[in-house]
């Protein structure tokens, strides 16, 4: 069985966010995720891609198909070189936003994923990894 190699996509415009959603859906289908799990990872990807665009000033996402002893899934890594997040626990609180959104993007994406990791340095950008397993 062949696994699709990782793919890095730009996130510079809101058209890119649409394309990211489509590519994440393809990966999720390939990994054998059910419809609800597909919907969850695509929605999480949409939130994080928009964060990358709105707060990180644009960046990239790397999509990987993962396989742990036959258990398959999708991993997404969002990276930007933006201002970074000064207080990550605060940023993960429902309803907290520095923009004009609902403040659900980061916390919601975490809830919709099986794995979630965030790294950020002031002035050094932000990196968010999520994964969803079958």
């Amino acid at each position, binding site marked *: 069985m062949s696994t699709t190699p990782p793919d890095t996509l730009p996130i510079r415009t*809101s058209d890119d966010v649409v394309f990211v959603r489509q590519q994440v859906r393809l990966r999720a289908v390939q990994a054998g995720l059910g419809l*609800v799990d597909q919907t*969850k990872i695509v*929605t999480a990807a949409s939130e994080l891609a928009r964060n990358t665009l709105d707060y990180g000033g644009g960046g990239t996402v790397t999509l990987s198909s993962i396989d742990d002893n036959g258990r398959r899934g999708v991993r997404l890594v969002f990276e930007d070189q933006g201002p970074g997040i000064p207080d990550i626990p605060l940023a993960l609180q*429902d309803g907290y936003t520095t923009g004009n959104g609902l403040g*659900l993007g980061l*916390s*919601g994406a975490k*809830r919709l994923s099986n794995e979630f990791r965030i790294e950020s340095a002031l002035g050094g950008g932000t990196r968010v990894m999520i994964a969803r397993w079958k």
Partner: protein
Amino acid sequence: MDRIPILKLGDALLVTIQVDMHDRLATALEEDLTNRIVKHKAHGVLIDISALEIVDSFIGRMLDNIAAVSRVLDADTVVVGMRPAVAITLVELGLSLAGVRTALNVERGMELIRLRHGAAERDVDVDNAS
């Protein structure tokens, strides 16, 4: 610029969202809807999202905004046709859509709007007496 078509259906307006919404498209839809509510004296706005594969917080905020503005103009907003997987994901995301009424399909959404405004106008509108 692209615009989402708005159809008149009885004394309600029907919007079917089939494309990926961008910021400007969402803003244009909000403006067009408020103008049409006033122009047609509409009592309800039906938003059909059965074509949407996901509803993220951006779309959720747009639906909330439309519902809030419509309410101020005395029109109810009913979101219809949400897919089951979208509903499950929406709740886990943390979106409650508190200000938005929902119905399974357009027919039921129309019923909701008729019921509410039929009750309010029973005295003047004999057609709704049955």
